[in-house]
Structures are given as C-alpha cells and as structure tokens.
C-alpha cells in the first residue's frame, strides 16, 4: 500500500543494499554491457602510468557500476511499495578494484509533501570491505498519491 508506506517513512530510516564483489571478469563484462571501453577498466599496462595527481596501481571498476548497484538498492525497495526513483547524484571518493566488496546503504534525510505528490530524500553511501566510503550521494524518490 503506497499510502501506508509513505506515512511510515521517517528521517534516519536505513535502506540496505546487497553486497557486490567486482572481479576482473565482471569489470570486463561491464565494459561490454555499457560500451565503456575506457582503458582505465581493462588495460593493465596503461594503468601502470601516472594520471596527474593520481596513481591507480591497476585497473579500476567503472564508477557507474556503483551507480548501478545503488540504483538496484533503491528500486528493490521502491518497486514493491509503488515508489519511483526520481533522482540520484553520486560522487566517487576512492576507486574500487577487483577483489573489493562494496555495499550500498541509504538513509532517509527528509520527507515532504508537495501540491501534487509525496517525496523522500536520502543520503547514499557505498562502502568497501574495509569500511572506507567509496561513493557518496543523494537520492530523491516519489510516492505518488493513491488514485
């Protein structure tokens, strides 16, 4: 029931996503599925280089793979209760590498009603297996009023 779900939302409520463990193979598969073949994600020799102020030390997962993992967390929560993902903003803090395990979470920061609909905003984080924050962001979701 959409109406009931929105009414139960509270600031501080935690949404937990599923862990995701990228491998060299999954990163290559992401290249093929996203058509993003930037050598950052597959070329070991290229990644031995120095990128201005940054030294990656090996291939890295696509930042947008984080985006996909966060989206799955949000839609898995929203679809069963009639909610809609309306916005997601993310910033990558540190790279994710093969062998890492990342887990997204979101915390409701506010709920509000407008003239035409009902909304919640969330603070999003993705942490790796060491507890380091690899991505942060904000999401906005809509709970359309029951017809």
């Amino acid at each position, binding site marked *: 029931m959409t109406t009931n779900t929105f009414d139960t939302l509270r600031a501080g409520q935690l949404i937990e996503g*599923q862990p*995701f463990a990228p491998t060299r193979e*999954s990163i290559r*598969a*992401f*290249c*093929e*599925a*996203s*058509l*993003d*073949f*930037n*050598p*950052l994600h597959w070329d070991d020799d*290229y990644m031995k280089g120095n*990128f*201005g*102020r*940054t030294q990656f030390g090996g291939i890295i997962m*696509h*930042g*947008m*793979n984080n*985006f*996909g*993992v966060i*989206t*799955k967390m949000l*839609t*898995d929560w929203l*679809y069963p209760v*009639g909610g*809609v*993902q*309306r*916005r*997601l*903003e*993310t*910033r*990558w803090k540190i790279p994710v590498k093969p062998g890492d395990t990342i887990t997204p979470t979101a915390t409701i920061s506010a709920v509000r009603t407008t003239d035409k609909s009902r909304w919640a905003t969330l603070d999003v984080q993705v942490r790796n297996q060491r507890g380091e924050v690899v991505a942060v*962001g904000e999401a906005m979701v809509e709970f359309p009023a029951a017809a």
Partner: protein
Amino acid sequence: MNESEFETDFWKDAELRKSWDQIIPGEPRKTIPYTLTLDAIHKYCRVVDDMHPLYFDEAFARKSSYGGLIAPPSIHILLMFSCTPADDWMRSPGTVNAGQSWSYNIPARPGDTIRLEARALDKFIRKDRLFVVHDNVFFNQHDQVICSGRGWTIRPM
C-alpha cells in the same frame, strides 16, 4: 547503430577527439539514435546483478503499473555510449568520471528508439585537474523525456 558496429578500441582515432582546450561549453555534441533492445537491457542488468522481474518477466511486468517490461533507471549508463559517435570526447582514454547526477521521468523500454541531446556545459581547473561538465537529455521516439543528467569528468592530461 547496433553493438556489433560499436568501436571498442578507444585508442583508435583518439587524436580526432576534442581536448580540454578545444571543448567549448555550450556547444552541442554529435549524437546518434539508438534502438534499445531487450538483449541489451538484460546484458546490463546481469553485470550489475539486478535481476528484477520488471526487466525480465513479461507476465509480471504486464500486470504491474508499468504495463510491460522496462529498463532500470540507470540504463543511461549504456545509452551514453550507444548514442554518441566514436569521436566523442567522452571516449578519450583516461577520462575519469568524478560524479554524475540524473533525474528520471519515465522508464526506457525495449524497442524504444532513443535520442540524446548533449553538450559540454562547463569546464574549469580545480586542484590542478582539468574538468569538463557534460549535460545530457535522453528522449524516446515519442519525444518524451526519459531522463536527464550531468556528469563531472576529469580530462586526460
């Protein structure tokens, strides 16, 4: 364009792509229409381990409020590259994605013919890095907005 025609060697013709110096904020990027297939949706969903029945189960999706199969909101990850040509500067090797923000209107669906309106929005130097902001809107064949978003990229030196 279909996937078999996609140039996966981002080094090829890299010199044809605009550098940070050549990118003009406000100038449109060349784009190409793309027909989104169910196979492409499924390929993307599998790599992010997102197997929701709205993307895979026709009967389930038909009974849902969406009335049929849809793509996940984040399908713009694929659309960004499928709707731009090989000389687009987003393909420059070493381009680092620093972050993106997207707003979602309606879902993309299998069979949609999708077009992109895109441009560089801004460029700046921060902490000795060269940034370009890209601005994008994806439309379906009915000229309905699917999603819109922008991204902050660090350009290769």
